[in-house]
């Protein structure tokens, strides 16, 4: 089959909503875009373990501690599924991790903000997992089969995380003044970074258009952000918390919440590595990787020796 035929068949599948599978022919750009996106997503799950992991040993009750452990463990599991999905495209997990550790690959900027109070564990679940869900629900219908299937598995757990986070905040908001203040402070710090999770405006987004036509992405950044704001504002009101945006107002005619402009200077600073925790997060990952090297080597050496012993026997 000629390249033109292959391309034609690929386009027809995309058009007809038939999933692309690992053995199918696909354009180079499509493969590269997927590797970039899926590995970024996998790195985000793993780096995302750090801010929440930071509160496991200090969780205020045993029930909360167990739930948080389970949640962070889920995120690690998401990392595994996603690395496995990326590997179907012909890269190895080691290569992808190397790109993260040398600073070439990105992960979600949200994890470069610090988790400073117990309420942050609630806010991360509610807002960060909440924003992630908007994106991931859409990605269940993404055109690449393994990615779509990984997302279907992951989404079930994410909505549980979001409810759990919201419930943490609800408990604080029904609690003492101190607890309520802790919840408000947390919303103040996490609201804008959560909106930034959807990325630049559609007009500024470099990869968006092509990703939409390949049906990797199915909704634009701005559409997803709007859906998130519309879903979240009533939830904040129910908690009795104030969203830190003076421009937030209901628009009767569009049926949407209007909101203020994101601080794009801050957005780009964090993307470029200058957020408050960028260096710490990367250092933590590098240290875990370097200090784990002898363990990985030992496991390989042992497996090798076992094989040898079996052959000799």
């Amino acid at each position: 089959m000629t390249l033109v035929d292959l391309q034609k068949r690929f386009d027809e599948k995309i058009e007809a909503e038939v999933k692309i599978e690992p053995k199918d022919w696909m354009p180079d750009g499509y493969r590269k875009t997927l590797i970039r996106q899926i590995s970024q997503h996998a790195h985000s799950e793993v780096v995302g373990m750090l801010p929440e992991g930071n509160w496991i040993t200090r969780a205020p009750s045993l029930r909360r501690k167990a739930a948080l452990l389970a949640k962070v463990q889920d995120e690690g599991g998401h990392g595994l599924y996603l690395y496995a999905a990326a590997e179907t495209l012909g890269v190895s997990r080691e290569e992808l991790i190397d790109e993260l550790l040398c600073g070439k690959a990105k992960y979600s900027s949200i994890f470069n903000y610090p988790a400073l109070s117990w309420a942050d564990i609630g806010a991360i679940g509610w807002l960060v997992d909440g924003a992630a869900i908007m994106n991931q629900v859409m990605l269940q219908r993404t055109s690449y089969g393994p990615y779509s299937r990984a997302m279907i598995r992951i989404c079930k757990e994410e909505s549980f995380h979001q409810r759990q986070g919201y419930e943490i905040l609800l408990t604080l908001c029904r609690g003492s003044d101190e607890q309520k203040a802790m919840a408000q402070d947390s919303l103040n710090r996490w609201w804008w970074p959560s909106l930034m999770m959807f990325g630049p405006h559609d007009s500024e987004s470099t990869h968006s258009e092509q990703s939409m036509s390949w049906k990797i992405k199915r909704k634009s950044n701005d559409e997803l952000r709007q859906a998130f704001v519309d879903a979240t504002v009533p939830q904040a009101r129910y908690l009795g918390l104030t969203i830190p945006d003076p421009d937030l107002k209901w628009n009767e005619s569009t049926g949407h919440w209007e909101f203020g402009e994101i601080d794009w200077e801050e957005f780009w600073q964090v993307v470029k590595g200058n957020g408050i925790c960028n260096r710490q997060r990367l250092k933590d990952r590098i240290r875990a990787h370097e200090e784990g090297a002898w363990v990985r080597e030992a496991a390989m050496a042992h497996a090798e020796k076992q094989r040898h012993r079996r052959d000799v026997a």
Partner: protein
Amino acid sequence: MSAPDSPLFLFARHMGDNGLILGHRLSEWCGHGPVLEQDITMTNIALDLIGQARLYYQLAAEMHPSDLTEDDIAYLRPERAYSNVLLVEQPNGDFAHTVLRQFLFDAWHLPFLHRLCDSPESGLGEIAAKAVKEVSYHYRWSREWVIRLGDGTEESHRRMTQALDDLWIYREELLLPSDWEQTLIRSEIIPDPDVLRPEWQHAIHATLSEAGLPIPQTPVIQQGGKNGIHTEHLGHLLAELQYMQRAYPGQVW
């Protein structure tokens, strides 16, 4: 003055403390493990142990005359009132130390739970029956890693030898009964360590020999945890564990 705590209460709380403190240590690895699969496994073991601790604390709370909750027991005691064995409070160190600490604990925990399943005290028997499934998996994991690291490379062998040197002295405490354990052993509510001992010893020796690791010869034994005499490490762990409950007393989370 209130009546002294019953041996059964003290034992349930002690079992809870072992689970909570070891679970806490393992959870410190979360996000920092040597490879993602092992990071997840250690978090999983932590989750099992903390889940078991909750069951023991709930049992202890139920039998206590005053209105205690699992969180009161877990969070609101001074250091001297924690009765976990010294082994579980030892710092994570490198992965070799963590693996060996886990193995020495599991090698006792698993046969102990097997027998505790038959306790005439049904509350304990039920917890043991649930925990034993989880702990057989923990034991398999820690045993395999002791062998892998003992056998693997020169460096991993050296690190395991160092871990043995550091932790071996804490293993015996698991089989040295406190006063309240002795009462429960006499009434056959908990297993007799002398019955466990041969199986326990065999499991440890067989594993170390498969790993090619020397059995330490030191006669030194450290104990005291069951009576609240701890190493200095526990206080720092508790400062972190108790932080929220101490900083915001009496609130609902």
